[in-house]
């Protein structure tokens, strides 16, 4: 088949905004097409040495150019095959430290671009993904020739990074959830309203959020096009480098107060397991991973990553999901410190996981639409989902079966001390929560490969294999 006989490339539903190119899937690989509209900037990107400078410092995902000829009919100038990222994650699934590192990465990319006569034309959080505990910039076509005096993506950087970081640090960690409802970032006017008054006294938040929000409001169309300072925008010195330096100082200065959450000391204060039981459980997880040799593992409710680390220590990628933002933060910081390149901690409420979002509901993928793990760990989790989340065991089995090939799940009986503590004073409406029903409903989707009692706990580890 010649180049011109190739079928039209199917763009990813998320890749429609930039006329300079698009991402498509071909032969199982994600590729990036550079259109003739993006040709001049892409050539400058390569010739200026910016690509090498960014890749050398691991700031940008590397790519190879396909050898196929330019395809004028398809309007494709170049086809790039970037390094494939094993698991895509989104800003609303990142902890505070992850979002902060992604913000600093974006600013470092922009700083490097300015040194090479180019500038970022957008500063979206979706341009960054995590390779293990390290952020990397993925949008190779975000660079344009540096011509204007102001940074066109300055507002977007505030929406996607600075506003959520300040809201998480100054108001509540849960406010990163606003990134889920505002896919193009949190409006600065909203952030300015929600932030406490004392942030007006700090130069960075004052300039880049509060005054920024006022300026955006002032120059909204109610003022009329004639009110816009077009002439001023085209004259004077280039302010981008100084703005980027100021943003770096501001982002570095956003820090989490010493907050504590319900689950952050869960393993430190572990009292419901004896040392023997804990050792047994760890050894069982290790043995399952060694025997299955999965390519990708999910650890659901993984807390600070204690069991995920048993997976990553074997050189296997593990996505460790937890509902607690401080646990995810701690896991991320520890994995980063230890150079655990196989660990990806992410924030997820399993009773309300990330849905598909955006235009056509397929711009951003939902939790169940991404990677399919070969093994999922659901340790000390089911009593939370059944009692706190009020999800019947049959529904739990059905969803887990849609997600994974193998499942290592810990059966926690209703009489268990921790299950009883979750139950508290509420009436027992959980009639399906019995061992016989657990085995029956999970048996509808999985075949049982192994069952091992955890000594002295009344709990049992089941290894299931998906029937499909």
């Amino acid at each position, binding site marked *: 088949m010649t180049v011109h006989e190739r079928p039209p490339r199917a763009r990813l539903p998320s890749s429609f905004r930039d006329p300079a190119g698009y991402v498509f899937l071909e032969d199982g690989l994600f590729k990036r097409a550079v259109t003739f509209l993006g040709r001049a900037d892409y050539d400058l990107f390569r010739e200026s040495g910016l690509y090498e400078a960014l890749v050398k410092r691991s700031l940008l995902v590397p790519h190879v150019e396909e050898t196929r000829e330019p395809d004028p009919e398809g309007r494709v100038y170049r086809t790039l095959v970037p390094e494939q990222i094993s698991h895509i994650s989104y800003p609303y699934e990142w902890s505070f430290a992850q979002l902060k590192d992604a913000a600093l990465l974006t600013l470092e990319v922009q700083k490097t671009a300015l040194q090479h006569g180019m500038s970022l034309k957008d500063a979206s959080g979706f341009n960054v993904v995590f390779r293990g505990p390290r952020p990397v910039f993925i949008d190779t076509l975000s660079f344009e020739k540096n011509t204007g*005096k*102001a*940074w*066109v993506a*300055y*507002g977007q950087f*505030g929406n996607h990074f600075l506003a959520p970081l300040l809201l998480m640090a100054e108001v509540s960690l849960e406010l990163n959830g606003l990134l889920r409802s*505002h896919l193009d970032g949190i*409006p*600065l*006017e*909203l952030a300015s309203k929600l932030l406490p008054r004392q942030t007006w006294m700090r*130069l960075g938040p004052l*300039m880049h959020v509060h*005054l*920024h929000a006022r*300026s*955006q*409001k*002032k*120059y*909204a*169309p109610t003022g009329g096009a004639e009110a*816009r*300072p077009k002439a*001023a*925008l085209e004259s*004077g*010195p280039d*302010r981008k*480098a*100084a*703005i980027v*330096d*100021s943003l770096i*100082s501001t982002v570095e200065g956003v820090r989490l107060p010493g907050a504590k959450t319900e689950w952050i000391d869960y393993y430190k204060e572990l009292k419901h397991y004896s040392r023997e039981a804990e050792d047994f459980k760890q050894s069982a997880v290790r043995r399952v991973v060694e025997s299955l040799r999965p390519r990708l593992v999910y650890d659901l409710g993984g807390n600070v990553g204690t069991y995920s680390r048993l997976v990553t220590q074997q050189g296997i990628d593990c996505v460790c999901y937890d509902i607690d933002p401080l646990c995810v933060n701690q896991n991320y910081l520890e994995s980063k410190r230890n150079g655990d390149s196989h660990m990806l901690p992410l924030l997820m409420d399993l009773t309300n996981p990330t849905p598909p979002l955006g235009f056509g509901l397929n711009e951003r993928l939902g939790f169940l639409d991404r990677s399919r793990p070969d093994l999922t760990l659901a340790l000390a989790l089911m009593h939370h989902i059944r009692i706190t989340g009020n999800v019947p065991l049959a529904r739990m089995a059905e969803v887990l079966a849609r997600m994974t090939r193998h499942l290592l799940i810990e059966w926690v009986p209703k009489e268990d001390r921790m299950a009883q503590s979750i139950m508290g004073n509420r009436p027992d409406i959980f009639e399906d929560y019995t061992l016989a029903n657990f085995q029956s409903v999970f048996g509808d989707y999985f075949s049982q490969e192994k069952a091992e009692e955890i000594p002295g706990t009344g709990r049992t580890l089941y290894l299931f294999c998906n029937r499909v």
Partner: protein
Amino acid sequence: MKLTMYLAYLDPATGSMALQIAIGGVVTALAAVKLFWSKLKTLGRKPASEPEAAEKSR
């Protein structure tokens, strides 16, 4: 309570550009002060003597 329709007709880009002009002088001056301060700190630091430097680089 006034509700803002964030999607409708708002042109935040111009406001963001205008603000950069407004704060351009401040951030440029701050960057200069920061650079001056870091140079001052470097000058104030006692340079390591040659044998010491060689020892440290081992």
